[in-house]
């Protein structure tokens, strides 16, 4: 039952941020580029959360930041799932030699710090939302691939799969009928966790100035911009920080709850 509470809390927190992101597509309190506010106005009736140095509405920028965070999370997870999933499946089905090679490559890729990899991608492609998604998605794909490989191998070692293989069932059929249904619950939980990591990675990149270029209002950039004004206008640093925590904690609770609901190996442990 306690687990169910986590799941619901997770859904609520994530829905809150995703809701903000969706609303920002249609409506924000002010236009994104509006600089008519005063310098570092405090929270008030006109600007609910106050303004930044340039007089831009903080709430507007936070809403756009939510959009960027969700977009990067979804984009990176999609890229990581496709690239990592395919690589993991291949390695799982491959002969010994190819499997060892792929595994070694994945280990090397995993040993690379995500931020270092991201810097390489940004250096090659220039700083943009797309670069951030590609960089984080690529780093993630190595982790996803390694997990997929292990899960696939476990399924392939099952007796009924061996039976299917010896009775001549085709590879694609084995993948769709036996492998995917068995591995997706664990994959889903892992991808949800990776979503949280991707959001944090994007915030770090933006904080370092390697994320989407200004005037994009990524939360990491908001934190960076608020750093110099933290003594006079602390809300500028607190608000994006809190939202970042809400989203990442929400996603983690959601993943935790999902695992108990979806993972067949854990059913009955409740």
């Amino acid at each position: 039952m306690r687990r169910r509470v986590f799941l619901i809390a997770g859904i609520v927190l994530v829905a809150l941020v995703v809701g903000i992101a969706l609303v920002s597509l249609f409506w924000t309190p002010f236009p994104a580029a509006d600089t008519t506010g005063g310098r570092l106005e405090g929270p008030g009736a006109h600007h609910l959360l106050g303004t930044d140095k340039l007089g831009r509405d903080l709430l507007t920028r936070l809403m756009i930041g939510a959009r960027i965070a969700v977009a990067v999370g979804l984009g990176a997870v999609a890229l990581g799932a496709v690239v990592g999933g395919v690589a993991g499946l291949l390695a799982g089905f491959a002969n010994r030699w190819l499997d060892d090679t792929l595994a070694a490559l994945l280990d090397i890729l995993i040993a690379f710090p995500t931020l270092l990899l991201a810097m390489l991608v940004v250096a090659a492609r220039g700083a943009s939302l797309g670069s951030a998604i590609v960089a984080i998605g690529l780093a993630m794909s190595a982790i996803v691939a390694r997990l997929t490989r292990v899960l696939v191998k476990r399924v392939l070692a099952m007796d009924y799969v061996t039976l299917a293989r010896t009775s001549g069932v085709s590879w694609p059929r084995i993948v769709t009928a036996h492998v995917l249904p068995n591995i997706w619950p664990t994959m889903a939980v892992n991808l949800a966790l990776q979503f949280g990591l991707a959001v944090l990675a994007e915030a770090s990149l933006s904080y370092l100035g390697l994320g989407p270029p200004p005037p994009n209002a990524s939360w990491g950039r908001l934190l960076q911009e608020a750093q110099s004004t933290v003594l006079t206008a602390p809300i500028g640093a607190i608000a994006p920080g809190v939202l970042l925590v809400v989203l990442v904690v929400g996603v983690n609770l959601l993943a935790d709850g999902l695992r108990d609901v979806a993972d067949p190996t854990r059913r009955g442990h409740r």
Partner: protein
Amino acid sequence: MKKQRIALLGAAVATAVALAACGSNSGGASPSSSAAADANAVVQVGSLYEPQNLDNTAGGGQGITEAFNGNVYEGLFRLTDDGKVEPLLATANTVSADGLTYTFTLRDGVKFHSGKALTSADVKYSIEKVLAPDSKSARKSSFPEIKSIATPDPKTVTVTLATRSISFIYNLSYVWIVNDQAGNLSAKEDGTGPYTLDGWKRGSSLTLKKNPSYWGTAATNGGVVFHYFTDGSALDNALLTNAVDVVTSEQNPDALAQFTDNPAYKVNDGHSTTKLLLAFNDRVAPFNDVKVRKAVSSAIDDKKLLQSIWGDHGELIGSMVPPTDPWHTDLTGVNAYDVAGAKALLAEAGHPNGFTFTLDTPNYDPHPTVAAFVKSELAKVGITVNINVITPDQWYTKVYQNKDFTATLQEHVNDRDVVWYGDPNFYWGYDNPQVTAWIKQAEQAGSEAEQTELLKKADQQIAADAASDWLYLYPQIVVASTKLSGYPVNGLNSQFYAYGIHKG
């Protein structure tokens, strides 16, 4: 999986609270009880500019100018904190009627820290060192062509120029006179100044102590330690906890509140020579059209921008010449903020619906914030700005060397640098033959009045042509403990004379 989750949460929380913790130190220095200055007290200076090496002709950077200029090394002339040039190691100089031959008489009794007496050979060596092919001196290109340097006797130096140069004496104030026997000076020193080098811990601090056998008035303190920081908040905290007595250049106006309200500190608003430019590439469309440049200049509210970045500090400029340069005229009224006028100019120039351009933006503060402001201002007149964030290295190669850009943001730190508009090959590519001629004539002028007159004309022309958009002039903010007095407040060209500081 459990472990990973905890680490994840930890990271998120840490990101959120780390900033809030920054600079939250509320402690302050207690006001000094003793009124009298202690001639042996050591002044602790906090700076963001660590030297790369100890030689200003080998790429030592602005940090070594700050620590050594006037303190360890001296020139034939000195640029004072209020911008005047006065004799230092030279006691007298005469100029020939054709303005090409300068004769300097050296001061008596000057000794290098190694004990050797100063002679004309050292002066010749020092000037040649700045002009050598491998010299990385920032001032190298400002020097006129020198035909010969003669040393008729140990106290006399005669320099013959190929062309007249009214700025020659001024430029000599940047030439450190070094011992010609000293060899490589990138990790040691041998100057004539009021301090000697006592130690240099790379990445941390540089210590100077009083020179007991200085030729002039001894320093009013026992020594100076320059402490180097890479983070402004850490530097502010060092000042709040008495680890340093003075911050040479405060870069964050929002950190000042903790000092202005505290009687133990004094915040000094001096003059800087650092200008922030929106530099157009005047060679390429659409900025080869003067109307477009004027329109962009008038469409940006510089006053609001300055206020956004610097609060109540800094000042507006209408051209490349800051108020401390002798040929300053107030040109802030030229191409002043006027959105309707900007739209009309754009229509005249054939861009009634605006256009799109890429703004190459250095990735460090304040450029990205300024770029966002410029983008939102120009959107109001229909111009779309694509912000392209680049590193300082990329800026140097792409913009400065290859001139492969449409517009860029950049800070220009030197004084008297309006003369760059006389060079059509400079990165911004401003090419007005009349201005080029005026600036050339100014350099060869017979008197300072004539030079000033010509440079004023050139300055007014570049402003009228909107050769660049000069957004604002940085403030120079020195924050010091009230125990200190006698420190420089203008920091011209990042020099910081420490010998007159009293610490009580």
